[in-house]
């Protein structure tokens, strides 16, 4: 890396002002415009209270503007992986300022207001990013500018020769993950490569990227799988392709490389460590980036030493590895050992054994929460597996797989429960999250939790908590969960039959009104009145949701 491009002084030193820094359908943005935009945004950030800001933006350039604006204002930036309501709620406690698409109204700094930008402090934590949560809950990782600069230097020493100066950097992975943030935003900005503002979503969009010089594509095994099967549009020309997030299968790597016609490097690293090593093809050894030391402990886990870690000495990782002549090889994660009935079992080994079955296409094993730790297997059936499911059902197929594992593992550690899914729930980097897998085993409750209950003569009043795990939300509707009308009738009848002496069969509904939807997160009051042959019901919160009279046939 050339010495004049560290992040701390990227916008304070007089660079070539007309150099393009970002490309998009809006046209190119040059370095002078970036500097001016950051100076205005930084004035806005400085006018706001607090020390921490949360930032989400779908546009990599706008994201960079707010990121540098906060850093120049001395604010810590928390980068959430998504902008869904839970994330906002969790962030609200921590961050004083919500920026980009997290803000209720995107702040528009006054055109005149700008501050002079001073170099950014290098040794304070200024970035907080989330781990992927592939083995547990996502955790926050702190980074100083010095760590980020050290990582950029290591990356550029390894990749710089393969990516021509001035090559645009596009990506299919979001900069809201650390991999995308480093490779799509920080490395290009620091090394004079323009960033392509919008994520590439479909292979066809590759044809629209600038080709002089051929661009870099920052992607993941998920998108490479699409390229491998569908091909790359003829007009597209790529100079270098980077993949990270999850392991790239050998056949996909080969097919993708043939389709791309450019070098394809896999990156090994994590939000905690940053980029550690790269390899040119599956099966080849991993080469540590320049300046990064690796060693394997007697217990077989990888340790790394690097300036980008921000600590001196060797840092443990959770990855098992072997040093080879060509670098090192990874052998699964050490923390994927579960303790079941006091026996240790490797989840990787169980998954590999399940995937060795002709019935299984892909397998993930998770520890299920509960009084006794037990394992659940989430499986994608192969063609043969689908035939077995149709013939024998899911339970018998799961038991057949368990018999097949019995020779290799002790009975007590074998998965207790099996779930067959059409595809594994994956994030955009191709990772599966333990929490999402475990959720597949959560029993779906048919009725909501009763928070309070008041019973009177022929009357019942229940306060119900409508939570997302209710069975009626499955498929109704994926993007907009709503309690279906039939579920409301069923709840009314179910609670009423328990409280009143209703013997007759359901025979119809009168005066049925659905006024407002009932959605997850609401608390509603259900009032039931039993009048001998009819049951009046009413769902309400601060507003009426639905009401009607349910009729029951008399005793036969």
């Amino acid at each position, binding site marked *: 890396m050339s010495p004049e491009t560290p992040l701390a002084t990227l916008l304070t030193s007089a660079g070539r002002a007309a150099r393009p820094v970002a490309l998009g359908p809006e046209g190119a943005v040059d370095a002078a415009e970036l500097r001016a935009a950051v100076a205005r945004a930084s004035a806005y950030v400085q006018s706001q209270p607090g020390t921490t800001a949360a930032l989400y933006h779908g546009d990599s350039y706008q994201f960079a503007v707010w990121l540098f604006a906060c850093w120049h204002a001395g604010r810590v930036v928390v980068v959430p992986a998504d902008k869904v309501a839970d994330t906002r709620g969790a962030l609200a406690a921590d961050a004083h300022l919500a920026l980009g698409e997290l803000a209720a109204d995107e702040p528009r700094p006054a055109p005149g207001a700008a501050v002079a930008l001073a170099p950014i402090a290098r040794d304070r934590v200024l970035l907080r990013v989330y781990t992927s949560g592939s083995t547990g809950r996502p955790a926050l990782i702190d980074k100083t500018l010095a760590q980020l600069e050290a990582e950029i230097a290591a990356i550029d020493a390894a990749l710089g020769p393969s990516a021509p100066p001035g090559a645009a950097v596009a990506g299919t992975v979001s900069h809201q993950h650390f991999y995308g943030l480093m490779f799509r935003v920080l490395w290009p900005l620091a090394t004079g490569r323009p960033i392509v503002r919008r994520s590439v979503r479909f292979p066809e969009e590759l044809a629209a990227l600038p080709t002089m010089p051929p661009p870099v594509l920052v992607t993941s095994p998920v998108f490479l799988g699409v390229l491998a099967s569908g091909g790359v549009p003829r007009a597209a020309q790529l100079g270098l392709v980077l993949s990270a997030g999850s392991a790239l299968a050998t056949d996909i790597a080969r097919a993708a490389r043939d389709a791309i016609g450019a070098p394809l490097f896999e990156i090994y690293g994590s939000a905690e460590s940053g980029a550690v090593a790269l390899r040119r093809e599956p099966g080849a050894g991993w080469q540590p980036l320049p300046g990064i030391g690796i060693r394997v402990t007697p217990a077989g886990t990888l340790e790394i030493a690097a300036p980008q870690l921000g600590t001196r000495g060797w840092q443990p990782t959770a990855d098992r590895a072997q040093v080879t002549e060509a670098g090192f090889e990874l052998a699964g994660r050490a923390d994927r050992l579960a303790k079941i009935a006091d026996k240790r079992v490797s989840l990787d080994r169980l998954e590999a054994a399940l995937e060795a079955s002709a019935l299984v296409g892909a397998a993930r094993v998770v520890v299920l929460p509960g009084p006794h730790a037990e394992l659940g297997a989430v499986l994608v059936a192969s063609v043969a597996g689908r035939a077995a499911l149709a013939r*024998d059902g*899911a*339970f*018998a197929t799961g*038991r057949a797989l*368990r*018999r097949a594992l019995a020779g290799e593992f002790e*009975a*007590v550690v*074998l998965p*207790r*429960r099996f779930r067959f899914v059409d595809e594994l729930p994956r994030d955009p980097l191709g990772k599966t999250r333990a929490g999402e897998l475990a959720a597949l085993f959560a*029993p779906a409750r048919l009725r909501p939790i009763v928070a309070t209950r008041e019973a009177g003569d022929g009357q019942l009043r229940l306060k119900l908590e409508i939570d997302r795990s209710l069975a009626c939300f499955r498929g109704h509707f994926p993007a907009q969960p709503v309690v279906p009308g039939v579920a409301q009738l069923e709840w009314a009848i179910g609670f009423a039959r328990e409280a009143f002496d209703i013997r007759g069969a359901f025979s119809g509904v009168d005066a049925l009104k659905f006024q407002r939807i009932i959605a997850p997160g609401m608390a509603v009051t259900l009032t039931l009145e039993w009048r001998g042959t009819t049951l009046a019901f009413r769902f309400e919160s601060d507003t009426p949701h639905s009401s009607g009279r349910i009729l029951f046939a008399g005793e036969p």
Partner: protein
Amino acid sequence: MAAMDRQEIYAWVARHLTEMFEIAPERITPEARLYQDLDIDSIDAVDLMVKLNELTGKRVLPESFKSVRTVADVVDVIHGLVN
């Protein structure tokens, strides 16, 4: 645990077979054979025994489970323990 009649025990066993092993309720009958008809294997049988221990507060001896073939046999074992 208070005395339970066979019908109550049967309902309890049927519910646990459904909850623990996700067996469709309509497949569970007193005559259904655990291994052949319900696909329960020896690991499931152990898990079921652990649950029985929790329910009855008494240790279900593995020997008493050896002769168990059908859902009705399970009901008999529990009935013998709690009454």
